[in-house]
């Protein structure tokens, strides 16, 4: 039963998150380890994020330009492509890449620790692996994914501007058009999305790595199921947040929020 096992995974992850939140509230987080992990995980992914951001921005500018050409509304190119990228496509696509880079790296590392009995060695010493190994990694992945997503989203804007210059749209017109359509609420929404996607990547990858079993093949399986679960949860969360934003607009009767 694939659906049943998916539900039990989600339940396990919620309990896992609850444990970690409790530990954090008891001030058990080792912040210097978190900083170490942020360097390990975050700084090494910066190049990938920048490359992905440039291409995502360019792709969206190209697509929106194609669609607007049919209606002669090219004046809106800058605003529409930036707004679409910031609100949806950018966070989703960059979070896909980060779930491959950051999430799979974390789950592979934790899975290797688990199958080579390093976590059991920590338990044998009377310490909790949740506190010493998992908690710093979770916080590091949350913080670094959030920051990387924000950087990636900023780079998408540059990608759009560069591409607009390539296809012969004046980049000044393009930039002037951005604040007319990108509202404050769009930016707040994309920041909320970035944070939640970072949290999803952190919890899923740590959970999957922590529960890996069965030798080096088990690590591969853990990485694979971590990546799939990440993507599905990111897409569903993205839909729910968009839905919530649109419902808020309907409730408060604002033309654009």
């Amino acid at each position, binding site marked *: 039963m694939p659906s049943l096992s998916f539900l039990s995974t989600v339940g396990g992850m919620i309990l896992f998150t609850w444990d970690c939140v409790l530990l954090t509230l008891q001030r058990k987080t080792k912040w210097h380890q978190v900083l170490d992990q942020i360097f390990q995980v975050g700084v090494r992914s910066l190049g990938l994020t920048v490359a992905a951001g440039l291409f995502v921005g360019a*792709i969206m500018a190209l697509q929106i330009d194609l669609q607007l050409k049919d*209606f002669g509304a090219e004046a809106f190119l800058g605003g529409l492509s930036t707004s679409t990228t910031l609100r949806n496509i950018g966070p989703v696509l960059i979070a896909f890449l980060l779930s491959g880079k950051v999430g799979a790296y974390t*789950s592979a590392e934790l899975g290797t620790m688990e199958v080579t009995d390093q976590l059991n060695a920590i338990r044998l010493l009377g310490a909790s692996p949740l506190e010493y190994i998992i908690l710093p990694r979770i916080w590091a992945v949350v913080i670094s994914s959030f920051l990387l997503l924000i950087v990636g989203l900023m780079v998408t804007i540059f990608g759009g501007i560069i591409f607009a210059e390539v296809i012969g749209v004046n980049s000044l017109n393009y930039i002037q058009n951005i604040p007319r359509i990108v509202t404050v609420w769009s930016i707040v929404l994309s920041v909320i999305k970035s944070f939640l996607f970072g949290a999803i990547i952190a919890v899923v990858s740590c959970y999957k790595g922590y529960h890996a079993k069965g030798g080096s093949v088990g*690590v591969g399986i853990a990485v*694979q199921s971590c990546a*799939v679960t990440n*993507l599905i949860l990111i897409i569903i969360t993205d*839909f729910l947040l968009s839905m919530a934003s649109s419902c808020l607009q309907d409730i408060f009767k604002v033309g*654009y929020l």
Partner: protein
Amino acid sequence: MIMTWLGRALILKVGEFLATFFLWISTVLSMIKQLLKLKFRARETLLQMYLLGVQSVLIMVVAMGFVGLMLIIELAFHMNLVLKHDSLVPAFSALLMVRELGPVITCLLLTSRIGAGIAAEIGSMKISEQLDALKMLSIDPIDYLVVPRWIGSVFAAVTLTVISLAIAIWGGAFLAAQKLGTSPGEYFNTVFFFVKFPDLAHCIVKSAVFGSLIPIVAAYQGFNCGSDSAAVGEAATQAVVRTSLYIIIADFLLTYLFYAI
């Protein structure tokens, strides 16, 4: 100092890209050899089609259904903001779906579904010296392992893209009827008026290209897997990351090639 570092990183990346490209060429060549000699590995290929394609259907349907719904909401927001009415939302969402998000998101999902698996499988075969055993039996690993996966993956990418496009557009019809008050007949009329045959053809070509990238990059990472216990996980990670980045770059290049030139 930073220039040497950058230069070394660039040379490594380019070298890896070229090696992957040569693996792609040798896979295609050995597939052609199989076809010419009529020594087609039918059982392996059918098994891989089942494992890579059929078993991914559920994930694709769930994910792309949500993408279709999400696109309707977002485009309704933007159309209301710019054009002050939302009669063109179905057309824009279907066009964006067919031209861009359908192939890309399907193949990114397929990457993490099968790319990590292929890399882990071939990597653990290398660690346990099964690849050497194959060579001892004078079986070419590319011929025996990569070609069936390559055919299976291209097949899976194309069929899953078509299925997920259908699901996404159908889900969009449902949400448009609920939220915008567009009747399904009106919705499909607009969609069929704006989505032309070349769009669908380009969509199929794109997904075939992306699907042919996935097993090659994964197999390359698996063949170059180290020998300690951390290596398999590392190979699986690298396979997912590289393939996702290659897919996004290939998408940009293909879209530019199809539409802008």
